[in-house]
Each structure stands twice: as C-alpha cells, then as structure tokens.
C-alpha cells in the first residue's frame, strides 16, 4: 500500500491546531485525540518501511516545486520518531495531570512531531529549514513549560543557542542558493558535482556543520543540552534526547554532508573528531552528576558521539576509497546505535519521570531504596541501563560491537579502544544510578512513595520490551535487509542521490 507522504506532516499539524479548541473541559477528549494521532503515525511509519518514493507538492515538478522524499534513511528515522512519540504521549496521559494547560502541552508536542517528520521527509533545503524551525520553536516552549525559575533559565539558554544555530543554517542556505541557483537538494548536489566546491560553498558547509552541530549538541556546541533536557517535563525530555537532537542534528547533518556536498577526507575526520570529543567529554561530565536527569542528559551527549563517530568513520573510509563493506559496517553501527539510543534513552527519561513524580526530587543523594516501592520502574530502568552500557544480549551491545568490529577492520585500533573505554564509563554511571536511587536505605520522607500509575507503566514496559528485542534488527537477516540496510545504502551511495531523485 502506498501512503501519501504529506500525511506524516498533516496528521500531527492538523491535530495540533484542533486541540486548543477543547480547552479545560474537554481534556480527556483532547488526550484521546492526541494519542490517536501518534498511534496512526506509528502505523503509517511501519507500513512505509522499505518503500522509496518522491512526492511533488501541488504537482509542481522539481526543481520548480518542493518535493518530499521517502528513502531508507527517512523511513528509519520516521520509525524511531513515531515509536518514541507514541510511548511518550502515552506516558503523558497520567504524568501531565500534575501540570495545568494539558491541551496546550499536547498541541506543542504534536507540532514538534510534525516538524521532525517534515525535516526527515523534505527534499528541499529551505523547506528543511522551515520544518526545523517548527520543531525547535515548539521544543523551546516545551522546555520552559513548567514556568519555574530553572525551567525559564534553561529555556532561554536553549533558545539563544538554538536560534544562533538556526541563523547559521539559514545563512548557509542563502549561500548555497547564491552559488548553485537551486534549493532542491538533488539539483544542488548536481550543480556542486559539475562545478566543484568554491570558497562560498565551503563556507556554507562549515556553517551547516556548526548549525546542525548546535542542534545536535555535539561537544563543543553542547552547553545548552544539560540544562534544557532535565528542565523539560519527563516525556518531553524523552522526546528531546530520544529523537529531537538526532533528527534536527545528526540526520540533517549526514544528509547534507553525504548526499548534497559529498563526503571528503577532511569532513570525515571532522565528524570523527566531533564524535570522539562528545563521547569522552560527555561520559566524564556525566559520572560526576548528582541530579538524575542531568546525568542522563550528559550521557546523551556521550551516546550521540557514538552515532557521529560511526557515520564519520564510514564516510572517511568511502572518501579514502577504502573497502566499501567496512564503510557500510561502520555506518550500520552508527545508524543502529541511533535507533537503539532513541529507545533506551527515552525509556531512561520516562523512568526518571516516574521516580521524580513519586519522590518529588531529582537529587540522587536524597533517594535510595526505591526498589521495593517501585518494582516495575526499577526493572525497566535496569533493562535500559544494561542496554546503554552494552551488556549482551540487550540492544546497545550489538550496535557497540558492530562499531568496534568496524573500527578494528579499518585498522583504527585506538578508536576501538576509546569505544570500549567510554562504554565502561557508561556502565559506571548507570551503576551509580542503580546504587543511589533503587538500592540502599529508604529515607524517612520517602516511605509514602508509590509505584507509577497505569498509562505510565504501559509506556515504560513497551519500551523495555523493545530494548530486549531490538537486537533482532541486526541478527535476523530479513529484518536487517528491510530496515537497516536501505538506510545504510542511502549514505554509502552518497552523491548518486541526486541522479536517483531526478530520474524518479
């Protein structure tokens, strides 16, 4: 069955504008409607796996009109976005009862989803910028949703750095248009191939890397993330860490670098350097944290480093003309880690939300002994921690294994060593979470704490099951060839993207 691609943007967008009409009285109806929207997006994303199509908006053929492109990489990201947003939305049913203005929250949530789906599908570089801004502005508002001291401060910091990133991207789009005379990614890529990179385009590439790097919070652009992600309500932290930084940052960066400009040796090294810096710095900063959500936010930076490292390593091997099989393996590891991280990091943030809701604090020093009071939260948290630390047979193990194997095969032994070392640091930080939150003595004031309620439990168990089963994505050949390999192929094909889109 072929689905109309605009539905991925239209469903959340239309629902987002319908929801505020319900107001305070129709809160239950608004919640049901919002959940229907995310579930239907999940169904659409599952159906669209393995398809690749181009949709021309308003039947204006490219390069005159705007096109939406569905290929392997897009459908992988769509799948991740819709899985995480379905779980986070289900979690919000119960969790967001403690805030006022739930309908407005749901509306902003869906706007963010619409923006992310648009970024992933867009084949036009200015359109990508517009969707990126929709998603970012909705996320600035959601970070400050609580309207307390810390939330407002974090939201302002996030907004200033996010806006600077967006302006860099807009400037780069203008430079690209001035130098190639086109806004369609396929035609830009064709123009670059025939004329080569001049000074203006190189500057534009630098601006793109800085702008998307700010959105992805790669070290040295990471300053906003550890404030913004913990301040948001827990389901939003899950969305931000789980998928937002990946779609607006990593996806857009790889699309532009691989498919539009073409990977070169220097950009490959740049990506590897950014990835390694993020991995090591994020892990060291995370270990010292005592705020539960802040620790998880720093570990997001570290884990995102793995994704960028894998993709950069693959790009470097391609640019050097090395063995394509090894390059594919490195990119496969990076993309698989991206999907895995989306699932287990959002699960970790949901468990932190459930802990925060029952204890009223995020400071790990004030917690302890919650294992008896909250058995399900504890079990799901252990699964997610084991997964992120790379303990077999959970999903994180497989993606890290692939990255290590790829690094060794390409004879980057020191990279493999750093991957294993950071993995150990990750294990330490999540052992710390287990030790201080769930084990030890229960403080007096937490005797009353209760397990999370129905919808929150369902969302957490759903993600925990996925954490256990995700390893099958690489172990079962048919799943791998349907979901992961097409995404890898989009990146290894590189500049052939333009001829494919133009001929489609």
């Amino acid at each position, binding site marked *: 069955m072929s689905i109309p691609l605009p539905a991925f943007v239209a469903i959340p967008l239309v629902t987002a504008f319908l929801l505020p009409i319900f107001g305070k009285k129709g809160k239950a109806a608004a919640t049901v409607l919002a959940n229907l929207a995310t579930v239907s997006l999940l169904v659409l994303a599952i159906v669209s796996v393995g398809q690749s199509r181009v949709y021309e908006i308003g039947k204006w053929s490219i390069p005159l009109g705007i096109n939406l492109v569905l290929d392997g990489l897009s459908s992988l990201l769509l799948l991740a976005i819709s899985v995480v947003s379905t779980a986070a939305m289900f979690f919000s049913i119960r969790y967001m009862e403690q805030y006022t203005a739930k309908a407005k929250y749901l509306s902003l949530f869906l706007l963010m989803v619409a923006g992310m789906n648009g970024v992933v599908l867009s084949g036009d570089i200015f359109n990508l910028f517009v969707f990126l801004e929709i998603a970012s502005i909705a996320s600035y508002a959601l970070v400050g949703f609580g309207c307390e001291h810390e939330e407002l401060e974090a939201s302002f910091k996030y*907004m200033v750095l996010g806006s600077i990133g967006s302006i860099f991207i807009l400037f780069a789009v203008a430079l690209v248009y001035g130098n190639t005379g086109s806004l369609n990614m396929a035609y830009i890529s064709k123009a670059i191939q025939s004329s080569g990179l001049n000074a203006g385009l190189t500057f534009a590439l630098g601006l793109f890397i800085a702008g998307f790097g700010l959105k992805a919070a790669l070290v040295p652009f990471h300053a906003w993330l550890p404030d913004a992600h913990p301040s948001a309500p827990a389901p939003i932290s899950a969305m931000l860490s789980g998928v937002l930084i990946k779609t607006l940052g990593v996806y857009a960066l790889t699309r532009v670098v691989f498919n539009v400009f073409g990977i070169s040796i220097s950009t490959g090294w740049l990506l590897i350097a950014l990835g390694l810096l993020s991995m090591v710095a994020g892990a060291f900063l995370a270990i010292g944290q005592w705020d539960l959500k802040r620790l998880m936010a720093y570990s997001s930076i570290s884990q995102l480093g793995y994704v960028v490292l894998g993709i950069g390593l693959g790009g470097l091997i391609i640019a050097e003309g090395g063995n394509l099989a090894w390059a594919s393996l490195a990119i496969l590891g990076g993309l698989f880690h991206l999907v895995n991280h989306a699932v287990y990091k959002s699960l970790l943030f949901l468990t932190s939300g459930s802990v925060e809701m029952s204890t009223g604090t995020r400071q790990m020093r004030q917690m302890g002994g919650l294992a008896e009071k909250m058995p399900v939260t504890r079990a799901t948290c252990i699964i997610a921690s084991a997964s992120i630390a790379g303990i077999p047979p959970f999903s994180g193990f497989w993606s890290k294994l692939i990255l290590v194997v790829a690094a060794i095969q390409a004879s980057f032994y020191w990279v493999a060593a750093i991957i294993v070392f950071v993995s150990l640091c990750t294990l330490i930080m999540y052992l710390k979470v287990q030790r201080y939150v769930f084990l030890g003595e229960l403080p007096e004031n937490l005797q009353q704490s209760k397990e999370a309620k129905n919808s929150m439990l369902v969302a957490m168990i759903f993600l925990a099951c996925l954490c256990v089963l995700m390893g099958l994505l690489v172990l079962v050949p048919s799943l791998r060839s349907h979901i992961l390999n097409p995404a890898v192929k989009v990146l290894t094909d590189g500049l052939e993207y333009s001829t494919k889109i133009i001929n489609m």
Partner: protein
Amino acid sequence: MLYALCFLLFMIGLYCAVIKKNMVKIVIGIMVMEYAVNLFLIMLGYRTGGIAPIIDKSQLEPSTGQLTAAFLNSSVDPLPQALVLTAIVISLGSLALMISICVRTYGKYGTFDITQIRRLKG
C-alpha cells in the same frame, strides 16, 4: 563591498548575542543577525535597475509566445523575496517567544542580568 558590510552586520549581531549580559540585548543581537541574513538573501536576487518579475502580454514575444530576452535580463529574482518573507514570519514567532520568556524570567528573578540568573550549573 555590500556583501562585506552585510557580513559585518552579521558579526555585530553575533558579538552582541555572545558578549552582552542583558537578556533583552541578547535578543536584540540575535535579531540583528537574523536581519543581516535576510538582507543577504534580498541582495542575492537584486539587480541594479531591475524590474518587477511580473509577466504580462507586453513581455511575451508576439510570434513565439516565449518571454522576451529583455525581460529575462532585467527582472529581479523573486525567489529570495519569498524566502525572506517566510524567514521573517519564523523569526517573528521566535522573537515573540523569546521576549515572553524574558518577561516571565524578570517576574521570577527580578533582573535581566544573566550573571545573576544562574541556578543551573554543573
């Protein structure tokens, strides 16, 4: 020359956003950057002595129905103007959100000075 001035405006905005301690001044700096980029986009499509890119009968060759060469050589590029319109609407949205966050922060902390608004650290 004009492009260099435009880039200078961009750098002034970036300087203001990075160095200033007052929240409202930071917002102003970001907006200066935004306007510099908009100006750059407009300049990309501009031609000295250009005409509006609107097609009427006088601009078509009577014999073939094609656009005349004079029109193609002198009309300005309309696409950057459409882009700027979109970019202005987006920056308006983020400006409104930024200013409202500033107002709420002032209500909580009683100051616009970011050196005193530091509850988050680590």
